[in-house]
């Protein structure tokens, strides 16, 4: 990046670096043309919270619609969003639009921006002792591409998408529903959103890999990097290898839709199943992209509040590498019902179950880290413990679903919905909250309320379990996902799940109350506010860190346990 702005590379302003360490540009320049990794991280976090309100609000509409059998609210929402009054088909179409938007927003515009754009941007450079990311300007482009992708997705909701307004294809955008089944520009805008967000993430991945490979401080060898940095390194490689395949697949969709190619159209010699292969070749690594940074955050937190280095550091690092590698060869377990042969199913079942081994290494190493440690139950630690429990529940149902024979029965049922929400909605999101409370005073220089954080955890934990645990029962009893209506026999547990959603919503109110508390009370945080046990480099800096840190690089000495 030959055009990198001088202020983003403060390290060479040797003569007067002290005076400039905290010199911030004016508001517009600082936040709209930012090249500072911490500011871009903050932008990503704000963006993620904003997108989460929309994505979570959509899940609320769905949850209340599902509270009882029949169609209650959809027709009203369909009219509200600009569909012709009294058009029942467009109301049903709206359901598809909602599940699509919820999935895409949560995956691409909530979890990825928070984990990778937010926390990783903020802390990877600091943890490896670098002044900034390798390509600060590209970092800025990544953020605004993601933002524009979100705008494109939002716009698609107000365009014709076949039966009604919006793209109703599911987040998987399977052909032929997404090609011949969805006339109108909505799906094109949805695909465009994925292109933009994907391009932003690929740039981010290149940025992280280059930063981690080239910009580590003297003495910070790969095997001394904090586990959060390891998790982001593996994640960046997954992004780099998986997202271009998605880009290829959705570009083929786009040309199938608009330019008469027949990649996925049988009459021209194409095959819709090929789209599923391509999508899941991306889609499976994508789920690890969402959870691996969470693993990294949890490792830092468990280690800090056990006042011990993480148990089995190398095993933890290479377990993530193993999860990343094996994650690329298990994709067809998402498509057991397309007509795979018995042998293919056996392979994908076995390969999928193998992932339980490195995942088990991680879970047991976290427990072993706590074993004999002097534990402190601060709010991030409590969230981290919640993560371990919830992720393990989701992991166990994952092992169940890995079986090709069992999946024939559970495929596209609420059991699957319960499974992936336990690992993502409860797993990844819990890790995000853990990271939020771990680093909130570090990032913003003021304390959140520990009481409110713990209160939020208690309410959230009850709420989300009430939402998603009953879905196991519903799925095993045959309730299909992706429908706004269901057999009245399923009403009880759907009613319970909706009550759980209400409880969860209260916890989100507590989350915002906590932010307001921090803004109002402005209780200053010191540099290393967690004290002994917090050993990574961000704790050597003030809270918030100076606008430009490490103008002279820190030296990692051999004895210090960086992890």
């Amino acid at each position, binding site marked *: 990046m030959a055009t990198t702005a001088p202020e983003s590379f403060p390290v060479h302003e040797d003569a007067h670096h002290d005076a400039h360490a905290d010199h911030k540009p004016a508001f517009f320049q600082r936040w709209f043309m930012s090249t500072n990794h911490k500011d871009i991280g903050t932008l990503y976090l704000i963006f993620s919270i904003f997108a989460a309100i929309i994505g979570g609000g959509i899940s609320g509409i769905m949850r209340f619609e599902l509270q009882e059998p029949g169609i209650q609210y959809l027709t009203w929402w369909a009219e509200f969003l600009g569909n012709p009054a009294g058009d029942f088909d467009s109301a049903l179409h709206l359901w598809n639009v909602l599940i699509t938007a919820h999935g895409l927003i949560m995956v691409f515009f909530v979890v990825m921006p928070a984990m990778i754009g937010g926390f990783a941007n903020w802390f990877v450079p600091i943890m490896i002792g670098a002044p900034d990311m390798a390509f600060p300007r590209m970092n800025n482009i990544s953020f605004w591409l993601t933002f524009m992708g979100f705008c494109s997705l939002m716009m698609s909701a107000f365009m014709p998408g076949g039966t009604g307004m919006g793209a109703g294809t599911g987040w998987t955008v399977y052909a032929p529903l997404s090609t011949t089944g969805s006339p109108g520009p909505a799906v094109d805008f949805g695909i465009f959103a994925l292109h933009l967000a994907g391009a932003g993430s690929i740039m981010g991945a*290149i940025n992280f890999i280059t930063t981690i490979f080239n*910009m580590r401080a003297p003495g910070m060898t790969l095997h001394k990097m904090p586990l959060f940095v390891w998790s982001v390194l593996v994640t960046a490689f997954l992004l780099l290898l*998986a997202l271009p*395949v998605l880009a290829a697949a959705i570009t083929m969709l786009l040309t199938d839709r608009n330019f008469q190619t027949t990649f996925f*159209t049988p*009459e021209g010699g194409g*095959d819709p199943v090929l789209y599923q292969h*391509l999508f899941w070749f991306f889609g499976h690594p994508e789920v690890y992209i969402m959870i691996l940074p969470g693993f990294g955050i949890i490792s830092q937190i468990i280690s800090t509040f056990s006042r011990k280095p993480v148990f089995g550091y190398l095993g933890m690092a290479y377990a993530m590498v193993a999860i990343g590698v094996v994650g690329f060869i298990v994709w067809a377990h998402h498509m057991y019902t*397309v007509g795979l*042969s018995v042998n293919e199913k056996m392979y994908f079942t076995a390969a999928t179950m193998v992932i339980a081994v490195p995942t088990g290494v991680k879970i047991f190493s976290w427990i072993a880290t706590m074993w004999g440690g002097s534990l402190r139950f601060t709010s991030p630690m409590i969230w981290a413990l919640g993560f371990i429990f919830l992720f393990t529940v989701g992991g166990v149902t994952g092992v169940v679903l890995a079986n090709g024979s069992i999946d024939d029965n559970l495929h596209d049922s609420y059991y699957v919905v319960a499974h992936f929400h336990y690992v993502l909605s409860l797993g990844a999101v819990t890790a995000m909250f853990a990271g939020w409370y771990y680093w909130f005073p570090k990032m913003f220089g003021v304390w959140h309320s520990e009481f409110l954080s713990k209160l939020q955890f208690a309410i959230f934990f009850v709420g989300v379990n009430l939402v998603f645990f009953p879905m196991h029962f519903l799925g095993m009893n045959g309730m299909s996902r992706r429908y706004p209506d269901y057999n009245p026999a399923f009403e009880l547990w759907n009613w319970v799940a909706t009550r759980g959603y209400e409880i969860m919503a209260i916890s989100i109110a507590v989350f915002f109350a906590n932010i307001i508390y921090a803004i109002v009370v402005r209780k200053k945080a010191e540099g290393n506010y967690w004290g002994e046990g917090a050993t990574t480099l961000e704790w050597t800096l003030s809270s918030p860190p100076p606008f430009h840190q490490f103008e002279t690089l820190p030296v990692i000495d051999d004895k210090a346990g960086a992890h």
Partner: protein
Amino acid sequence: MEQSIAPDRRIDNIDEARRRNNRTGFIFLIVAIGMLGMGYAAVPLYRIFCQVTGIDGTTQRASEEQAAAVVAATGQHISVRFDGNVSGGLPWKFKPNQVKQDVVIGEKSLASYHAVNNSARPITGTAVFNVSPTQAGKYFNKIECFCFTEQTLKPGQEVEMPVIYYVDPAILDDPDARDVEQITLSYSFYESPKG
């Protein structure tokens, strides 16, 4: 924050650092573009993979010579059922002339389909085909088939469409497929994309 750091620990040569970053960034950009290319390469690779392995019921194509060289398995019968349908928008009637054939494994057989263009315009269609159960795909050989080429029917035209096929006796040696007693051959006619 940082104390007494030796001067050689500073990044003095910022150009060198940038060059290094640009090189690494470029390498991984190439990797990303390479994966994009792999995504597209998957299209022909997938087709070849399906044809070679007969996976998912992809049937095989054989020449007359290959068919002649096959030694029929004496007394081993298998039944073949026929199915024909047209995709939504195609105004054709298309159905097999026989529901079922009982054939000797390895012997050539002739079956035929009947197609009518019910519309007032000439239409070109392509037939897409598959067999079930899928593990029989690699043993189901077609020597001659209307599905190898596009078919054009004039308004109101009726035609008989033949298919000559045999079931490879190797099916009897495959533990996954030797128990198959009946193979269903299915055709779907689509209107050929214009252009």
